[in-house]
């Protein structure tokens, strides 16, 4: 324990975990002695913990505000976790501006989505289980954010992975869902291997004297360049796993098999951005090796491009949003890769709002249409679901980067720093992707809400979801609308509040670009947005039917057959080899038995 004022840090992750335990026990109990509590009660019970944690997060924020800039961090050692030789890991929590920012929006969106789920999951037969998982996830996410060292972070890191697995395969009767869950977990584990190895190398290099961020940062100068490169690359492998970047992005689209609130919370707002957060966490290492940064940036931007291409051809509303998530994550990595950490984190921040909003909106639509997800069966829902429509429109504008919505500022920040730091290639791709983003986002909006209803029966049954679901939409919409202004660049007379807030915990050097470059950047992205949205309007504005894809479109529709490729190159050989070995031991057993039959059973 350090000074008393930080003793509450541990409570932040603890409360949701406790909630998870409680609800889980209720669930197990109910499985034996029938339902003990009504859904409402369970839902409210589930929402308490996130709400309190949100308040704590705010408290953390203001506590940090109270401290002088250079001394802005709170930390709390709860107990020595394990201590072997020079390895001394303590279960400690650590809040600095970076983590406090994450904390705020994670708990905020988390709370909203809990509330939303009360409505969305109504009538589900294992209702408490869902909330138990949701709380468990929140707890792990908070450990991830608050962990004072890589190892503690890894606990949360794996915890969220587990929850994602459990929630993706939530509707476990359907094999495909479970397979999607397995895929997510396994792919994440591949990334985690990178994380663990990175940790190990880092430890043997400088971990001997303390293995928490503070002392690592202090000793970072002792590292060989080679080691730093190795460590950074390995950690980035972990990031690609968690944040769905090339080559490990394949699990995220399948992850949409989970309930929509899960997609919103885990696979859009919070968990998938953990990779970005981790890179920012280790900014003191990444900033030392720009080469690795470049790798990160290019990986990110290419992911953005590829998934944007996929996004343009999907017909499942959630798949569209999933790919857009991947693509936005690409932006974030481009940002952190180019050492514009604050820009990247800021995009994480805004993205949390509008993407959560979009997913919840999509959830509302799906809910309204009784679990119909194909956009080519929707249409003209504007009148039926006004609130959903309006909020989703705001979300889309934010996503597409239309000024002055939040997405515009954050994305522009990244593109600008790419241009200013002279990586024109990245910038150009970024602008292109911005256009495509606008295109596929509004393709979705137009097809779903405008034009004539394509399936009259579904259309007739459609109805606005209850307030418990629309309320979060509205709150998030407000967030998506105004979050951008928190980091208003100087050119708009803003003070880049977020960047300055984050400054103490990041090792970034702001690119010094002239106003002209900044103007070029803004102009380009605005133009790209305009072009994108116009094409979308041309093609889908009034009325459009389900297209038959051919050639490249078909190829893109099937996401370049990457899944099939992986299956062919990795999964099948692995399984074949496995069963081959298994059978080999079988046949050697049968050999033995034959042998023994001859000599023993005769006896």
């Amino acid at each position: 324990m350090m000074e008393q004022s930080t003793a509450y840090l541990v409570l932040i992750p603890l409360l949701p975990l406790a909630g998870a335990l409680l609800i889980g026990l209720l669930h197990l109990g109910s499985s034996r002695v029938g339902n003990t509590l009504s859904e409402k009660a369970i839902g409210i019970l589930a929402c308490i913990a996130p709400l309190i944690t949100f308040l704590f997060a705010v408290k953390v924020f203001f506590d940090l505000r109270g401290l002088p800039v250079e001394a802005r961090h709170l930390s709390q050692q709860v107990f020595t976790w394990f201590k072997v030789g020079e390895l001394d890991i303590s279960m400690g929590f650590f809040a600095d501006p970076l983590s406090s920012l994450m904390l705020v929006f994670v708990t905020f969106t988390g709370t909203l989505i809990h509330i939303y789920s009360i409505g969305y999951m109504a009538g589900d037969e294992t209702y408490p289980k869902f909330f138990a998982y949701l709380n468990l996830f929140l707890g792990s996410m908070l450990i991830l954010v608050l962990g004072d060292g890589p190892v503690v972070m890894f606990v949360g890191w794996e915890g969220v992975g587990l929850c994602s697995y459990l929630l993706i395969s939530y509707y476990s009767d359907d094999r495909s869902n479970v397979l999607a869950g397995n895929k997510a977990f396994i792919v994440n584990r591949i990334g985690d291997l990178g994380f663990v190895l990175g940790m190990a190398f880092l430890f043997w290099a400088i971990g001997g004297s303390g293995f928490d961020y503070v002392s690592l940062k202090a000793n970072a100068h002792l590292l060989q360049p080679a080691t730093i490169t190795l460590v950074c690359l390995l950690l980035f492998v972990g990031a690609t796993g968690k944040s769905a970047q090339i080559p490990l992005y394949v699990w995220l689209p399948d992850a949409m098999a989970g309930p929509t609130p899960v997609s919103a919370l885990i696979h859009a707002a919070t968990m998938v951005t953990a990779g970005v957060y981790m890179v920012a966490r280790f900014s003191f290492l990444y900033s030392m090796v720009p080469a690795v940064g470049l790798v990160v940036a290019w990986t990110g931007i290419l992911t953005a491009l590829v998934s944007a291409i996929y996004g343009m051809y999907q017909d499942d509303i959630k798949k569209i949003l999933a790919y857009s998530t991947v693509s936005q994550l690409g932006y974030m990595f481009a940002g952190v890769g180019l050492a514009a950490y604050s820009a990247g984190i800021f995009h994480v921040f805004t993205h949390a709002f509008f993407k959560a909003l979009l997913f919840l909106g999509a959830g509302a639509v799906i809910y309204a249409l009784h679990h119909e997800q194909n956009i080519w069966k929707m249409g003209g829902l504007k009148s039926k679901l006004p609130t959903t429509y309006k909020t989703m429109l705001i979300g889309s504008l934010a996503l597409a980067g239309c000024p002055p919505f939040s997405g515009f500022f954050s994305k522009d920040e990244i593109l600008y720093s790419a241009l200013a730091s002279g990586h024109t290639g990245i910038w150009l791709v970024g602008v292109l992707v911005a256009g495509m983003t606008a295109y596929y986002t509004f393709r979705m909006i137009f097809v779903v809400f405008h034009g004539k209803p394509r399936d009259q029966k579904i259309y007739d049954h459609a109805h606005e979801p209850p307030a418990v679901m629309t309320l979060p939409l509205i709150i998030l919409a407000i967030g998506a609308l105004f979050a951008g202004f928190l980091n208003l660049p100087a050119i708009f007379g803003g003070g880049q509040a977020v960047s300055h807030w984050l400054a103490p915990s990041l090792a970034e050097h702001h690119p010094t670009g002239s106003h002209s470059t900044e103007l070029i950047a803004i102009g380009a992205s605005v133009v790209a947005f305009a072009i994108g949205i116009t094409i979308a309007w041309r093609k889908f504005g009034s009325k459009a039917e389900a297209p038959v894809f051919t050639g490249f479109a078909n190829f893109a529709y099937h996401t370049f057959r990457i899944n099939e490729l992986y299956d062919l190159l990795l999964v099948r050989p692995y399984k074949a080899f496995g069963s081959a070995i298994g059978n080999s031991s079988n046949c050697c057993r049968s050999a033995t038995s034959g042998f023994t039959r001859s000599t023993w059973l005769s006896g």
Partner: protein
Amino acid sequence: MFENVLSTMIFLPVLAGLVLLMLPISQCAARRLGLAATIIILILGIRLAFGFSGAGGMEFSEVREILPTLGIQYSLGIDGISLFVLLTSALLFPLVFLVMTNQTKGCYGNLLIAQGTMAGAICATDLILFYIFWELMLLPIFFMIGIYGGPKKLPATIKIMLYTVAGSLLMLAAILYLGVAYHSQFGHWSFSAANLANLTLGGTAAVLAFAGFMLAFAIKIPLFPLHTWLPDAYTEAPPTATFVLSAIMAKIGVYAVIRFVIPTFEVEFARYALLLACSGVIGMIYCGIAAIGQKDIKRLLAFSSASHMGIIALGVFCMNIQALTGTLFQIVAHATSTGILFLFVGMLEERMGSREISDLGGIARKAPVFAFFFAIAMLASVGLPGTSGFIGEFLIILGAIKFNTAIGVLAGTTLIIGVCYMLWMFQRVFFEKSNERTSSFKDLTPIEALAFLPVILLILIMGIYPQPFIAKIEPAAKEQIASLLPAVQVANYTVLPKGQVSEHK
């Protein structure tokens, strides 16, 4: 009774078992008797744990001369290395008697004898005594598999028997060689491990003796090329026997390497550590991959167990404090998790009469508690942080990387390999739709749930707050490493992975 608690823990179960086998009592009574005996042992074990200071060195020692002319002693004792192996067996055995309700009387009797003899092997500090128990602990398993085993039991029995007996007899030769060497060097006979550690060995003879020991232990663990008996034995054995084999007996192999081989054969050990580590890691990967191809859930778990034993053994051969502590920790962790996994499978078999993965499915819906416990054990065995599995594996991987980068990286792949087959199995067995076979599956009764709860809690506690355990393990591990250190310097292994120098050590 408490002053020679170790003898009690050894002979009480053996006597109980013999009585149980001799007396014509009913199966149910037999189970009760066994339960009572094991619970007494558990209580003793707990008292032992609290009486244990953990200062390093032997505690609760008992020494009696049994063959003075040859310096053979009946000498028992436990230290940080053996304590937890002993406690684990003490903790797990009552569980078997609680949940494995319809095994035969003979099975229960053999189970008790196995517990006693294994306790003997764990506590013995005299090599001859150790050898005696080491041989004896195989017999109950032999009979359990042979008499109560599955359809293909005979080849399995013969395999395991010939393998292990061959190994242990060669070990006997090595032991006797050591004894004679000691006599020639110090002028009097002694087989106590502590004395033999003072031997100055060298030349091919020493290497051969070392090989004799390692062979015996490698077969029991089992290390890679010698693992072929394992899948058959584990699969054909009755659940109780499989439980004993996987949870305790394999661990005793690792334990024996640490206890007897390292102090005596520092030089040889250091010289061949790399080779052995390779075999460990290869076995880990090989069996892990083989597991994915299995149709029989028990066989799958058998391979998974072999895979984990590979990495546990690896921890021993890395010769640094992290890895060794990790191994000792993982011994307990793996014993608990895999042990109850096998028990769960046993229950599945008892209740549904099939182990074919394809026959099962949808159990999670039918039996949430069962599924929940199973899931926790499974997650522990795939090393999820927050469960006991993570600490051990993390330490071992860390140590492995220090020992040799390549091996460390390969060891890391256990994260992936393990999760592949486990999730695959979990999906097929617990998720998806339930069929007519599984729809009748009954969940754990409250009694059973209570029986499993301590182990489940142990798994979680060891994951969340492992320091108390590690604090008791570490001193003993330190001694071992200290005894190794000069030899390691001789064999000049890289103290750090390539490309890294240590201003910091």
